[in-house]
């Protein structure tokens, strides 16, 4: 996320006085996650990559004469289609189109977005749009008043998709291995296509194998020749409830059938093993704490004083002992409500009174529930305390997140300030403001500039550490404080100018 603005570098064209936040989007659609995950269950057509220009689809046709026959036979009516080079935004009453690049076609009030290589034929009759999608992928947006009927061709019984007021993506492709299972000859198989439809919005009726199903938004349906519509997202029957029936493989050889049986058996065995493992884990009882990184736990802390210093008697005892630095570590566990479940000393500081004070102090800390996979979970982590014995002002620091500059300073000869600042930025962007602040404060012991102080103030406010925010904001020139003060107010921290040095 962005750092504080350096006004001297800010581009011209201020929008001061305009409340841009007035323009707010609606909420994301419900069940977004379910729809995304449903699409993730589809077989990916290609390796996942970051968005780029669309790559032309390469057809997975087998090489050689078979492919030639298949390609020719896809042209059902026996004509060779020429490639069109321009979009036809307003379609005629009937027509045909093969797209060489992404194209959009308006059919009545509905829209077809064609991927390169998609092929369509259509007939418009009032609000009824009859389409033969020969091949390729098309994203359909069907107006409320239109009825789109997509016929994917092939032998009877026909396979169709019917939609009205819907948004869906239809992919028509050929899969030769399925052709073998279907048991057709190569020539006639070439006229058969496999159809996959993903419904984004509205309802779609899918007909295949003489059966019709309604496909809800977020669902995917496959239309395979001579079979009912297949919905891959449907739950799998438990193995012990699934009737013992042979795999459907019309035209498959006995060896292939046995291979399918073997694979099913192995899958059933694996499923049973996984179920047993889940059951065993569940039997151990809920709430087994998970050990997490200290920075992660500290990010969930919402209250309590981290700086637990020894009392005066203990300090004198530390000085008399000549201990330059003392360290203690404690294991802290919180439950699913964020309440402290336990504080257990792992390494004593060497001073009983200080150990007890640390433990009391930690038990006063408050946390919000820590979420794992979106659910509150009991977690544990280790918290270390380092106290530097010195007559000057020193405070005990806890790791993480942020030792003050006078406590356990880094070796500036080897400490990489830029790297620490970059890490701090990453931590802040990921939501770990306390960890970010800790890194910046450590960096400030080696290098100081206005930008670092501004970032420290920003992170301190995000971490709800008003004391540190005041301290570092005092290092920021007054003309540059306003944006920080405003940001801190957004975080619920009011730093009046009187409080800041």
């Amino acid at each position, binding site marked *: 996320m962005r750092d504080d603005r350096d006004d001297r570098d800010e581009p011209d064209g*201020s929008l001061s006085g305009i409340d841009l936040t007035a323009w707010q989007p609606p909420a994301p659609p419900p069940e*977004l996650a379910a729809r995304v995950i449903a699409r993730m269950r589809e077989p990916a057509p290609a390796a*996942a990559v970051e968005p780029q220009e669309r790559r032309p689809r390469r057809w997975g046709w087998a090489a050689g004469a078979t492919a030639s026959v298949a390609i020719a036979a896809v042209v059902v009516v026996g004509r060779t289609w020429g490639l069109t080079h321009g979009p036809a935004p307003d379609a005629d009453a009937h027509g045909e189109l093969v797209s060489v690049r992404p194209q959009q076609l308006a059919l009545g*009030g509905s829209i077809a977005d064609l991927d390169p290589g998609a092929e369509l034929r259509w007939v418009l009759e009032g609000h009824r749009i009859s389409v033969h999608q020969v091949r390729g992928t098309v994203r359909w947006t069907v107006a409320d008043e239109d009825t789109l009927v997509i016929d994917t061709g092939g032998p009877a019984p026909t396979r169709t998709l019917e939609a009205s007021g819907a948004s869906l993506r239809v992919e028509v492709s050929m899969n030769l291995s399925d052709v073998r299972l279907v048991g057709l000859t190569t020539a006639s198989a070439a006229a058969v296509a496999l159809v996959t439809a993903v419904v*984004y919005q509205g309802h779609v009726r899918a007909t295949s194998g003489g059966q019709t199903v309604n496909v809800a938004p977020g669902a995917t349906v496959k239309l395979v020749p001579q079979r009912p519509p297949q919905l891959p997202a449907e739950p799998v029957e438990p193995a012990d409830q699934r009737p013992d029936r042979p795999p459907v493989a019309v035209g498959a050889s006995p060896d292939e059938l046995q291979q399918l049986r073997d694979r099913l058996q192995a899958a059933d065995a694996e499923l049973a093993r996984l179920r047993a493992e889940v059951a065993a884990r569940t039997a151990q009882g809920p709430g087994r704490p998970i050990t997490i*990184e200290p920075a992660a736990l500290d990010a969930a802390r919402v209250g309590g004083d981290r700086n637990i210093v020894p009392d005066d008697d203990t300090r004198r005892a530390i000085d008399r002992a000549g201990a330059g630095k003392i360290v203690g570590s404690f294991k802290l566990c919180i439950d699913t409500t964020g309440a402290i479940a336990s504080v257990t000393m792992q390494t004593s500081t060497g001073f009983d009174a200080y150990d007890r004070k640390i433990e009391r102090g930690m038990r006063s800390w408050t946390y919000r529930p820590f979420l794992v996979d979106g659910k509150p979970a009991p977690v544990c982590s280790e918290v270390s305390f380092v106290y530097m014995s010195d007559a000057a002002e020193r405070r005990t620091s806890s790791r993480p997140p942020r030792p003050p500059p006078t406590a356990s300073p880094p070796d500036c000869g080897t400490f990489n300030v830029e790297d620490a600042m970059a890490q701090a930025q*990453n931590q802040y962007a990921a939501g*770990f403001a306390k960890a970010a602040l800790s890194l910046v404060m450590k960096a400030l012991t080696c290098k100081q500039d206005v930008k670092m102080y501004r970032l420290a103030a920003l992170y301190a406010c995000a971490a709800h550490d008003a004391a540190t925010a005041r301290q570092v904001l005092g290092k920021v020139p007054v003309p540059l404080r306003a944006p920080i003060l405003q940001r801190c107010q957004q975080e619920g921290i009011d730093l009046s100018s009187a409080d800041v040095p």
Partner: protein
Amino acid sequence: MTAAAARTAEPLDELTLRRAQRGDEQAWRALIARFQHPVHALIWRLLAGRARHRVEDLVQESFVRVLRALPQFDPAGPATLSTWILTIATRLALNELRRPEASTLVAEPLAHERADHATERQRLATAIAACVAELPEPQRVVLVLREYHDLEYQEIASMLDVEIGTVKSRLARARTALRDGLRARIPDAVRGLGGPHAR
């Protein structure tokens, strides 16, 4: 959800991220829940004036691509998870903006547009949306990423594969155009806006 609110929302902890990278469906849901608002807001604003269903299509597509590419995401890399996800969404939105626009597409009513109870804030929202929709795509993208998602210049430059100077100049032109457009549409609401001054 504002950018500030999104930042203070529950962060995606490292454990959940690792699980999501391994294909854990619950972790996927957590990731989507965490980032659906900023992704949806980004695409919705970038596609200002386009049909709403395209926004929802692209939001879905964004997350599908995120989840498929997630195993290769390096948490210690140059981009944060948030920036990485927004980069994917931005590029998808840009691809959409560059597609030929069908004449039959009609702009959806804006979220706050209610003629019968138009408040000042709603008028401002409508005006901002209209002005942003009129911006050339390069300016629109930079403006939305900077003003609504608080991204740094370097992040925007990396996302769009341009120089930082280019980001700043586009932002300046976008702000000027937005300010002038708002002044023309709702002069009373932006009265007092003089020339550019430090924010």
